């Protein structure tokens, strides 16, 4: 029986909301063409604005954290380095999901 089908006789009529309706109200815009592109543009805008403000601020004496764009470099380089190293690790350490089970089941 479908969710919005008529209830049996004698029972109160209930409005059964389509499960996907709630999700569409909040995230339906994701299905519009170009939505992901706009998300990336927004992210890029935050990145560029943060760099611009960083450039306009008067430099403060201190450690490497006061260098212009240091955090941009740390974020982009750090994440990329982790992902690439992780791929190498995957090549070395990945095994079939039942790798241990075969040994565990052996008497």
């Amino acid at each position, binding site marked *: 029986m479908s969710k919005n089908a008529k209830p049996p006789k004698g029972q109160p009529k209930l409005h059964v909301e389509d*499960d*996907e309706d*709630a*999700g*569409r*109200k*909040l*995230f339906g815009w*994701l299905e519009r063409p170009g939505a992901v592109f706009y998300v*990336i543009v927004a*992210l*890029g805008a*935050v*990145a560029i604005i*943060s*760099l611009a*403000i*960083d450039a306009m*601020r008067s430099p*403060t004496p*201190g*450690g*490497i*954290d006061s260098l212009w*764009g240091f*955090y*941009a*470099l*740390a*974020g*982009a*380089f*750090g*994440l*990329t*380095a*982790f*992902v*690439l*190293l*992780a*791929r190498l*690790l*995957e090549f070395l*350490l*990945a*095994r*079939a*999901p039942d*790798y*241990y*089970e075969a*040994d*565990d089941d*052996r008497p």
Partner: protein
Amino acid sequence: MIGLEDLNPGFVLILGGLICALSPWILLRQLVLVAAPAAAAVLIVGASYGEHGMTEALRFNLILFRLDELSYLFGLAFALAALLGGVYSLHKADRLESASALIHAGGAMAAVFAGDLVSFFLGVEVMALSGAGIVLGPRTKDSARAAGRYLTVQLLAGGLLAAGVALTAGAERSLDFNTLRWDSWGGGVILLALGIKCAFPGVHFWVKDAYPRASAVGAVFLAPFTTKLAIYGLVRAYAGADILIPIGAAMVIFPILYASIENDLRRTLSYSLVNQLGFMVIGIGIGGPAGVGGAVALAFCHVFYKGLLFMGVGAVLERTGTAKSSELGGLWRTMPATAIFTMIGAAAISAVPLFSGFIAKSLLLDAATGQALWWVWIVMVIGAAGVLEHAGVKIPFLTFFGKDSGKRPKEAPLNMLLAMAASAAICIFIGLNPQWLYSLLPAPVQHEPYTTSHVLAQLQMLSFAALAFVALRRSGLHPTPRDVILLDVDWFARSRPAKMAGAWAVRALSAFEAALGSVGRSLSSFVGAEGPIARSRVWRGAAGNSSAGWIAAILAAAVLVGLSTFH
């Protein structure tokens, strides 16, 4: 006469757990799951600072309930975590899980409020046994084996803790935490025990082994307690110990590599948990009000945002039957509320400004720069980018967005949503009110996280890291989720050659055990191969009875050393 003010709040939870164990009525268990943590929280908030519940045993004065700034903050976090976990589990209220979960939380709380090392040890042991009950929750062959391995590791740590306590008591004639030094025999052994509980590099495997094998509810109860209790112990006894800084730095970095390629999202969260513990361990090693304050603040925040992430992934597991990212995607359509709460948890762990993680990590970074520990500071900044990759973006993206898996599960049950909403509210509340948390820290700190430089630096780092993630996804360099497991240090215990070596070790140990004397034999009769623990289902699921031999030997050795030093 012992009054209500002498009652360690952990005992309330343990009593609640025992009621759940005996109750055949689900309604009673549901009531206790919420009422017991709430009562414990009321007791904590209403108690006055000082030492209560003093008693004498083993010719030592035991302090069953000590309340100070440090124990208050950890105790409060544990009570709230137990309450949220209780609400999260209401739809199920499974007898074994409910009982184990409350006793586990109660043991953690009893240990946190313990005023001496013996009471602390007893709380830790209660946690070990009950934790195995939680892992056993799904009652599958896989969970039984994992419960056995979990118990083995926890009892090993407990045995070391007992040995350390005995050595310290013998050398210092005191059971006070303040007498511990990591470079003394007793202090070093206790540090090793806490290191196992805290998932130090090399002994971290039990976290990623046990937590993902518990049920959705069980993992929510496992995540906040054991490792955070270890952090509490490190803060209490080893604040400022330099040795902790490189250990913490390693803990920040290596789990990120595993978490990035791990397919099982709960295992990803387990590695992420180790990574977050690394930040705390660094803070403890740095010491001082800012370092310790940052570690404690992060531990407090972590209880809620990591709990929230485990809840979100647990809700997905509950509804879809899987937590593997290779089988998920596009769940925003039918689980939008769970998606939003998980994203709040992701924002908090990624230290996005206005969320709880930001105000704690900002304090830790300032602690490192304050002592000119630049390499530590760089590790934490780059580590934060890694956190964004696996916990901030990967988990919400692959679960709720990304490629549509075609799954259309129902939204999470109301009680789960309620627990997630409350956890999310706490993450936001702390993020918006940093001074509230700072005022509760053990030592006063003067820190303002919402300065232009702090916020700008964090936004710059996060936005560029997120852009790098997008670039890696689009170029195909980001790992595609695959249904594989990753070898970790537990390979040394679980592979076939290791098991054969273990069998030979057991034979050698059995001979050693037999020589330990009457104390060893009496302990062995309980813990050993023929004892009640070894005959239990959990123990039979362990890697083998070899573990029982190890534990019996260590416990027996601990007691013998203790007895010899007391006289």
